[in-house]
């Protein structure tokens, strides 16, 4: 106490106090605004996980995203993208990118789920961002499928197609098929807006709505096709292709058979 009292009048103390006050205010604000992402703070807390994540990051990601995740000409900054974005991109194999292109394609994941979480923790430690959704958040069992269908057609179908089979965007970009997406991935995608997808934050699409959409997509993935073979549920083009190949082969084959002279 004595030492503190002795330096109380030191000229630098004004600056120190100012920084302290700014730190407290900023900290409180930061904690207050990211209050829902409690998982985030849990991850931030684990220092060894962050260290390990940083090592993996420097090894596998920094050549494009920069040594401090500040981004560059080859890749965007990752400061503030949050753990959810890292988990989505790495767990689906989209990152690390195999080759530059219009869009990162889905591949087999390169990192284990533990490594993925470590990298997510490292990125989350740089700045606050959307956290990996909890099991509670992606629990869609009570959601209304029909409501999810309406929301899906309003928000998702124009790119991902009504049956979730995906669709084309401009210049070689595309909205991927949702047929192999897990509930967690769907939630993370809505939360973080990967690639060309817009962000559907909790302010525009609250958690119950996201759950309803997940319920609808899962239903699309699992639902049987009542009318027989579904032909990929890609619509009239595939139906036309099937008609002009298989069906007409059968019909013209029958015509040739009947037109043959009896021997």
């Amino acid at each position, binding site marked *: 106490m004595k030492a503190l009292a002795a330096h109380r009048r030191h000229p630098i103390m004004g600056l120190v106090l100012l920084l302290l006050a700014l730190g407290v205010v900023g900290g409180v604000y930061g904690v207050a605004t990211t209050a829902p992402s409690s998982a985030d703070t849990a991850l931030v807390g684990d220092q060894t996980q962050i260290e390990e994540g940083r090592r993996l990051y420097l090894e596998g990601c920094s050549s494009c995203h920069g040594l401090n995740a500040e981004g560059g000409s080859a890749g965007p900054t990752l400061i503030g993208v949050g753990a959810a974005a890292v988990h989505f991109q790495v767990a689906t194999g989209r990152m690390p990118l195999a080759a530059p292109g*219009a869009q990162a394609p889905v591949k087999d994941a390169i990192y284990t789920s533990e490594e993925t979480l470590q990298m997510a923790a490292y990125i989350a430690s740089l700045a606050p961002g959307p956290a990996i959704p909890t099991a509670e958040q992606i629990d869609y069992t009570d959601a*209304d*499928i*029909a*409501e999810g*269908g*309406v929301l899906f*057609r*309003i928000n998702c*179908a*124009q*790119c*991902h*197609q*009504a*049956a979730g*089979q*995906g*669709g*084309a*965007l*401009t*210049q*070689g970009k*595309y*909205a991927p098929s949702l047929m192999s997406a897990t509930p967690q991935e769907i939630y993370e995608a809505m939360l973080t807006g990967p690639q060309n997808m817009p962000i559907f934050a909790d302010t525009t699409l609250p958690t119950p709505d996201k759950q309803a959409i997940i319920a*609808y997509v899962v*239903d*699309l993935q699992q*639902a049987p*096709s*009542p*009318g*027989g*073979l*579904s*032909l990929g*549920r*890609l*619509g*009239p*083009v595939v*139906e*036309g292709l*099937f*008609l*002009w190949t298989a*069906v*007409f082969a*059968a*019909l*013209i084959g*029958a*015509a*040739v*058979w*009947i*037109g*043959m*002279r009896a021997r």
Partner: protein
Amino acid sequence: MSITEKVGAGTADFADQRLGSNKWLGKNLKKVFPDHWSFMLGEIALYSFMVVLITGVFLTLFYKPSLVEVVYEGSYVPLKGVMMTEAYASTLDISFEVRGGLLIRQMHHWSALIFVAAISVHLFRVFFTGAFRKPRELNWVIGVGLLVLALGAGFSGYSLPDDLLSGTGLQIARGIAQSIPIIGTWAAFLLFDGEFPGVDFMSRLYMVHILLIPGLIIGLVTVHLMMVWYQKHTQFPGQGRTNSNVVGYPLLPVYMAKAGGFFFIVFGIITMLSGLVNINPVWIFGPYTPDQVTAGTQPDWYIGWLDGALRVMPNWETVAFGFTLSWNILIPAVIVPGLIFTAMALYPFLESWVSGDKREHHLLDRPRNAPVRTGIGVMSIVFYGLLWIGGGNDLMATTFNLSINAITWFLRITLFLLPPLAFIITKRICLALQRKDRDKLLHGYESGRILRLPHGEFIEVHQPLNNKEKAILMAKLDSEQEPLALPAKTDANGVKNKGYRVESLRARLSHFYFADTIAPPTREEIEAGQAHVAHEAELEAPLHEYEEEAYVQVPFHGGVLHREGAPMTNAEALEDSRRTD
């Protein structure tokens, strides 16, 4: 008399005493139809249309053409409680509540697709074989009318379920109506009963789909068939077939059995297909609301080329005097299809004007013998195919990992480049085949056998054509067409020729059509050629004599040679040794 004969005779007698039908039936049941598988393509269209009619009647029992909003309470869970129109709800009910409803709905849709496709392949057959020539031009025009009506029937049916796809299609149709200069807005109001999507619209569309268009189709199909009956069916050239006879089977019993059997085959294929393969899962697409659209929105295949034309068209618009002219819609959706269908309907008259050919044709052309016509046909198919790719450009992009912009530019260029190229290549192939035919007529087949003559000369032995093939090739001699001569600018007295411009255009077109054909050999040349073939056969004859001697078989792995009079041939000996093994 057996019982069948008794009953048959009794029925015929009963009808004849009241209707006088025996004379007519006696003549017409013996009517002869030529036999070829490609003559049955039109039948596929007829039979699939019957299936469309039968299933369509079933669907009208349950479908409600109403845009009144209701809450869905049916058994399809993912739509439960959703607001939708009665039209859409009743379509869902047909699919999920009505017994057998989904099967019938799918039969209706599949057979509609087959109907238009069968019309198209039937049209190919008629076009490429020149079956539209005099006296059948009017039946061709009716056929084109039927094709357009079939497109209308299909599109109106596609729009009735009021799902997301049909609503989007209707919105495009409305845009097309609006793009017509001056009357566009009013035309759209008239069609849709006011602003989109209107209130009375569905019942109007329903009337068009189940009454107006089917009525017209049935009427025109009847005329189409009556004309075939009256004018008799064309036939391919062949042995004993001339321009003034029909070689084939009588209607009863052969052709009736064939046609009747084919009806059941087509019906069976459609039913099996509809039971096994899903088409238009409206429950997936959801109810139509004007603010929604799904990726991969496509029309059924027969509208795909028009959609493709819209998709590849650059975004051109002109604003004049405060009015917007939407070339981006007007050209691909109104002008281009308008020109194509008009040209199609008028083609027989154009060709007969160019050729100056006013003869009746009951013998078909082989496509190779009309190279320009065949070229135009292939060119049109390539053009259509490219627009088809345009209609599915988004699926092409995702399936083949391409950029949709690159596909659009590829099509904008190839739509002008590839069809002429296809024309040139097709014409060349046709001419090459004509040369081959000419050679065959002159020298017969190349047998592949090289013969060395006693004085050292090598010749390839040719074999004479059989009569059947010769008859087919000889047909070209009668159908040969000379290009018209260029007209004179002035007549002998120096008076100016008033029709010079038109006549010279006609002569130049005629030149384009017929100048390159390979002239077939004359009958004298053919006879000389056949004599030559016979001479070669004579030269080869000693070899055959040698072959026909006792030593015919080559020994099998040390087997016994067969000599005349020996108990077993080599083949028998071989078979025998196998059995004992």
